[in-house]
């Protein structure tokens, strides 16, 4: 295992200390509870947005805390959902009287822990809590009979868009409905060139030969749906774009926010190259790119690979996407 770390068990808490030190102007970190808060929150009357999940997906979620996005993020151990105590503390910490939305990625652990937290928070402080569960990963098949699809890239877009809506002063129900709408209009698919290594495990989660790739991976270093021979970027782009486009389906004339995401170990030069392929495929399908995002935003430790997310975007979603945001991970308009 080659990582810039000290003890595997200290990775999350030390990285949080680094975040706090690097962004003293914008973030406040509760190290005891491993919660990243907006420094300038909570703003009275604004719906509080919290998310959280296992660590190892940086900048998500802590890097998306700030004006126009999240009010707080709970950091679990690497790839392990945070616990209800964290979510309850964060819920209390961001409640400014207008209720709190929990943004949860659809993993059994995340869902159960957030559920317990919401039950306890409601009983405990009387805070109104609604939840939205993201589940945009089309790689998961037969999802009706299983734990369902994973929440992946759409989570990033949703946190931005819903964050902007909350900033406008919308009600909890409105914010939650918008979140549902974003999730419903988004789809993703990912692939890996390499595995990643969970620090506590000390060795790669899976082994891939030099001429192999995994298609249909999530963001937890889990193997994908299929192991295939390594292919050129143009073919990989089609393997990701086609199932995404076909699933919603996105149609000729649709406008989308197109998001090419790196899994953590893939450099920007390759992501831009992939974006070139994706843009061409969308163009051929008659789908217009209203906005785009290219970079490492929802990662899987040092895994090499990428994912493609499309979000069907009407004028309102684009306007909310363009609204000011000031977080370590996404920033514009401020």
């Amino acid at each position, binding site marked *: 295992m080659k990582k810039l770390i000290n003890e595997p068990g200290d990775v999350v808490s030390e990285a949080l200390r680094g975040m706090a030190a690097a962004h003293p102007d914008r973030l406040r970190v509760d190290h005891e509870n491993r919660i990243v808060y907006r420094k300038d929150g909570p703003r009275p009357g604004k719906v509080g947005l919290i998310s959280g999940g*296992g660590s190892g997906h940086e900048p998500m979620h802590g890097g998306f805390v700030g004006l126009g996005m999240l009010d707080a993020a709970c950091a679990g*151990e690497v790839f392990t959902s945070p*616990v209800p105590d964290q979510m309850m503390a964060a819920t209390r910490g961001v409640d400014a009287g207008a209720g709190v939305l929990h943004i949860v990625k659809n993993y*059994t652990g995340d869902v159960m822990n957030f559920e317990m937290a919401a039950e306890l928070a409601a009983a405990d402080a009387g805070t109104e809590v609604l939840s939205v569960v993201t589940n945009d990963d089309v790689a998961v098949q037969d999802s009706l009979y299983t734990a369902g699809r994973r929440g992946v890239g759409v989570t990033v877009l949703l946190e931005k868009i819903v964050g902007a809506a909350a900033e406008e002063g919308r009600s909890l129900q409105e914010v939650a409905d918008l979140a549902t709408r974003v999730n419903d209009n988004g789809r993703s698919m990912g692939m890996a060139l390499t595995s990643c290594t969970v620090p506590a495990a000390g*060795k790669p*989660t*899976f082994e891939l030969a030099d001429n192999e790739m995994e298609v249909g991976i999530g963001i937890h270093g889990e193997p994908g*749906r299929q192991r295939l021979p390594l292919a050129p970027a143009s073919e990989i782009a089609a393997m990701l774009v086609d199932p995404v486009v076909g699933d919603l389906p996105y149609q000729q004339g649709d406008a989308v926010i197109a998001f090419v995401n790196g899994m953590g170990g893939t450099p920007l030069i390759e992501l831009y190259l992939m974006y070139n392929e994706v843009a061409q495929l969308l163009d051929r399908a008659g789908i217009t790119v209203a906005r785009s995002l290219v970079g490492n935003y929802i990662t899987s430790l040092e895994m090499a690979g990428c994912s493609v997310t499309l979000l069907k975007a009407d004028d309102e979603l684009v306007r909310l996407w363009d609204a000011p945001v000031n977080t370590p991970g996404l920033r514009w308009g401020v």
Partner: protein
Amino acid sequence: MEVGTFVSWLRDAASTMHDNASYLTGLDSAIGDADHGANMDRGFQAVVALLEESSFESVDELMKKAGMTLVSKVGGASGPLYGTFFLRFGTALAGVSPITAEAVGEAFRAGVGGILQRGKAELGDKTMYDAWAPALDAYDAAVADGSDLAGALTAAAEAAAKGRDATVPLVARKGRASYLGERSAGHQDPGATSTTLLLESAARTLA
């Protein structure tokens, strides 16, 4: 049965989870996200820390606090599931004295009910429930057959082990392994494995 006996179970379970951490994580690498061993170990170490700090008057208090500790320290899927098991197990024993094999059976049933309610798994979904369900049945059957606690727990642990082994060929329908579809077949479920370890520990210590 004394509080101390249940303390022994928790301590034995903790050292079992510690010793098997990389084995469990290895199983989770194949069809999950390579953290189950670390999760169980972290959780039970926190339970041990709890035992060092506090002393408990009653079994129900001990078990509930252990459950809350697991909920608060494990995270992931296994945290709420094991946490709920112990919470319900403890709650079922509140005010119960003496703690007979029957009483433990009631608590066992309540705990497994909690896992079912939280996780909504069905038999054959390739989860820890595939070890818990046959274990509970075997326990009940043994007690009905006149077995004492030790015997019933031994029967439960053996049934859990069979359930665990039976997860190998299954295609997962719950938890992370379900994302793998057909590729999940041929691998043993990590949670069913840790459940078996927990029940083997119970059979060794509760008597």
